[in-house]
């Protein structure tokens, strides 16, 4: 081959290589950028909003720019657009917009999720008008407490300021004026002016809409905490919550992943979302957190949820990622036993006594005007829930000391004595109380066996070298009725009475009723 021929071939091949590079560039253009963190996209409609609000409300603009909506090009106007005739619609810089973004608006893109959420128990949280809680907030305490308290979790009923003719008031720009006692509000069961219920921003805080934030226990803690439903504190006390803190610090939770599947994406700990909302390998994520719950733990007497067997199967599927079947079954036995104990020993008898008092008109029809109604409310609404919820999520201290111990104290030390006082000279009600105390679980008050007393005494003797455990602790109120004659005598007072401490349960003297 001549030198020239070689040169021409090299030239031709080089040209061919150029063609190859062009093909490579074309294929590069077809590549999907998986995991690539894209820059925010500002579409034409949203650019003026963003530019101006970067000055006016820089925090909101920056939050949006950091969030996923910005990355996929969903901007201000896409969510805040209004249709003609919307109650809250107004013209702003040439566009018809609304201040409130409701599940109906979110549903324009997230159709199925919006629909599922609006059918959930969460979305119904605003329908508490007839509840005792509402009477407490609105009337007993006062409207301002309800607006700034109850409704910030349960949701307000969105209202507008009206003029004398009943027309919606507007400001100088034509913006409809919302009733300030109902807005701002991110209560999860908000009753919106457009007929939709709830608000997505209760969990998916605007304007970043961080999926990680929604999966963090703190997010649920805005409402699920405190004396009457301390789910967040209960979770924190449980092994689940303890594991979460460390796993989170070690970066094992991967909560910002788009697909967050227990057993696949992460294994180290569950959050509230893991068990109640998020996906497993066998079931998709659900925006109905009631879909895996077997009992309702809120009312006076706990009831099984509708289709609770299916719901239990869904929860057991979650548990199964980390626990063996006998472990899960054992937990459910402990949990069910605790709920049944509360129901049968305390809740139903207390309710029976309260019903008898009401029937005998010893308690008025007005809620919370009698002392015993407060006692009863504490019993089921605070302590009773703590005991049940503590057992449901494996928090021993909430089940026992914040729960059953206080339930028992409230029942024996307050409810029964107060009921007795009211029932004085009302044989029918007195009979009800007597029947309750004749129930097997309450018989210990009448008579504790010698063997049981001896067991307590010997425990204190062995453990602390003191044999007086069966004595009432110092400061125990005196018995309200004299002990029956057949009550066995208390322990010999030969040794000093032990002072109760946190570690020394001091059983009551078996003669206090």
């Amino acid at each position, binding site marked *: *081959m001549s*030198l020239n021929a*070689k*040169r021409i*071939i*090299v030239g031709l*091949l*080089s040209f*061919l*290589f150029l063609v*190859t*590079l062009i*093909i*490579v560039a074309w*294929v*590069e253009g077809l*590549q*999907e*950028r*998986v*995991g*690539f963190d894209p820059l925010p996209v500002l579409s034409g409609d949203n650019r003026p909003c963003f530019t101006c609000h970067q000055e006016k409300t820089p925090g909101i603009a920056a939050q949006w720019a950091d969030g996923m909506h910005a990355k996929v090009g969903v901007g201000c106007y896409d969510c805040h657009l209004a249709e003609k005739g919307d109650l809250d619609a107004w013209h702003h810089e040439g566009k018809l917009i609304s201040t409130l973004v409701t599940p109906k608006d979110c549903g324009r893109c997230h159709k199925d999720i919006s629909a599922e959420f609006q059918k959930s128990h969460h979305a119904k949280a605003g329908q508490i008008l007839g509840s005792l809680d509402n009477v407490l907030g609105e009337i007993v305490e006062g409207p301002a407490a309800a607006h700034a308290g109850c409704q910030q979790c349960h949701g307000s009923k969105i209202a507008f300021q009206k003029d004398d003719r009943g027309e919606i008031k507007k400001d100088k720009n034509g913006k409809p004026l919302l009733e300030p006692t109902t807005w701002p509000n991110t209560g999860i069961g908000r009753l919106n002016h457009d007929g939709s219920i709830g608000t997505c921003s209760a969990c998916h805080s605007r304007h970043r809409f961080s999926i990680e934030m929604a999966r963090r226990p703190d997010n649920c803690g805005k409402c699920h905490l405190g004396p009457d439903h301390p789910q967040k504190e209960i979770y924190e006390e449980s092994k689940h919550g303890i594991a979460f803190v460390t796993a989170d610090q070690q970066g094992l939770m991967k909560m910002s992943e788009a697909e967050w599947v227990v057993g696949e994406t992460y294994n180290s700990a569950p959050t509230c979302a893991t068990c109640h909302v998020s996906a497993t390998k066998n079931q998709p994520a659900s925006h109905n957190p009631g879909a895996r719950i077997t009992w309702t733990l809120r009312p006076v007497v706990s009831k099984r949820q509708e289709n609770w067997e299916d719901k239990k199967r869904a929860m057991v599927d979650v548990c199964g990622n980390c626990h063996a079947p006998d472990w899960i079954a054992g937990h459910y036995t402990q949990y069910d036993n605790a709920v049944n104990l509360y129901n049968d020993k305390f809740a139903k008898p207390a309710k029976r006594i309260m019903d008898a008092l009401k029937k005998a008109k010893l308690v008025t029809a007005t809620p919370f005007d009698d002392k015993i109604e407060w006692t009863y409310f504490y019993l089921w609404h605070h302590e009773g829930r703590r005991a049940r919820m503590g057992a449901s999520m494996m928090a021993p201290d909430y089940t026992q000391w914040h729960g059953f111990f206080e339930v028992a104290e409230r029942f024996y030390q307050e409810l029964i004595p107060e009921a007795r006082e009211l029932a004085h000279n009302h044989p029918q009600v007195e009979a009800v109380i007597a029947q309750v105390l004749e129930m097997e679980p309450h018989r210990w008050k009448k008579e504790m066996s010698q063997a049981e007393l001896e067991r307590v005494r010997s425990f204190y003797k062995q453990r602390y070298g003191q044999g007086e455990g069966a004595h009432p602790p110092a400061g125990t109120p005196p018995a309200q009725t004299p002990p029956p004659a057949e009550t066995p005598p208390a322990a010999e007072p030969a040794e000093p009475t032990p002072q109760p401490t946190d570690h020394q349960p001091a059983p009551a003297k078996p003669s206090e009723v």
Partner: protein
Amino acid sequence: MTAMEWVKSRFPVDQQSIILRLQEPVPNHLKRWWWCLGGMPAYLFIIQVITGVILAFYYVPEPSRAYESVARISHEIPLGWWVRSLHKWSANLMIVTVILHTMRVFFTGAFRAPRELNWIFGALLLIITLVFGFTGYSLVYEQLAYWGATVATNLADTVPLVGTYIARFIRGGSEIGPDTLTRFFVFHIGILPTLVLVFLSLHILMVRTHGVTELHFEDEDPKEKQTFRFYPDHILTELMIGVGLLIAISAVAVIWPPELSEKANPLVTPAHIKPEWYFYFTFRWLKIAGLNAAVLTLGLASAIFVFWPFADKALTRVFKRDLTVPLGIVAVLGIFALTIWEAMAH
């Protein structure tokens, strides 16, 4: 003083003499395409260096991030998939061409005196190329690569006397751990390229010292001039091959970009461990002969391979005949058979 004069006065290199040296005559058989295999590995090595440097910009040699960084190269970095694909295909082709070049030298007896040292350098380059392939494949930190590395380092463990120390040195501990990947990385981008440069320089120096072995074919015209110029005649041939190779590698790189299979999981032993194709024969031999026997025989075979010029001389003296070709055929067929066997197995 012109700029050129300034440079020449400080760096006295004569352009003419360079061209003169490049124009040294090479034997006529190099005009035949099949006899140009020696240049191809060097050419592919340059591609490997360039693509390797680009990959090293993004690769993280740390167990918790290695796989993710390869995924990032493949899916996020612009053209990353192409560079990785070029690196992989060029590596495979480099192994193929080195093996073919070695076979050519072996069967034509080009290793004989005075070129024994050059054979040794070449043989070491083949072994280094294979180690290159092994360490590079392990860096991806896929499940199979991880377990391949586990098997390979366990092999080293069984070498008598020094095996444990060698295995510990390679792994950076008694087991494959966080330091192993870093070590493989340092081997792959530091130690092995340096060794290649050293031996390649020696290899080329030897070729220049002794000249290319002259081969003659029956269809040659004995009256024709026996040599032609290296530059520009042979350089242009190599350029043609080079650009053709680039096109070919780019094409396969686009058509079959390397996948990323399951991430390495030290807790789950895969049902079927398989190394890369160029280790199939050793893997199959391992299964047949058992660990200790396989390590001993492979070690012995490697030693014979590296020092073949001397083994050849001794064999000829003993058997009074040239055994290179028949032994070579047996070895190639044996390796080929073991490779096919392993490829067919699960």
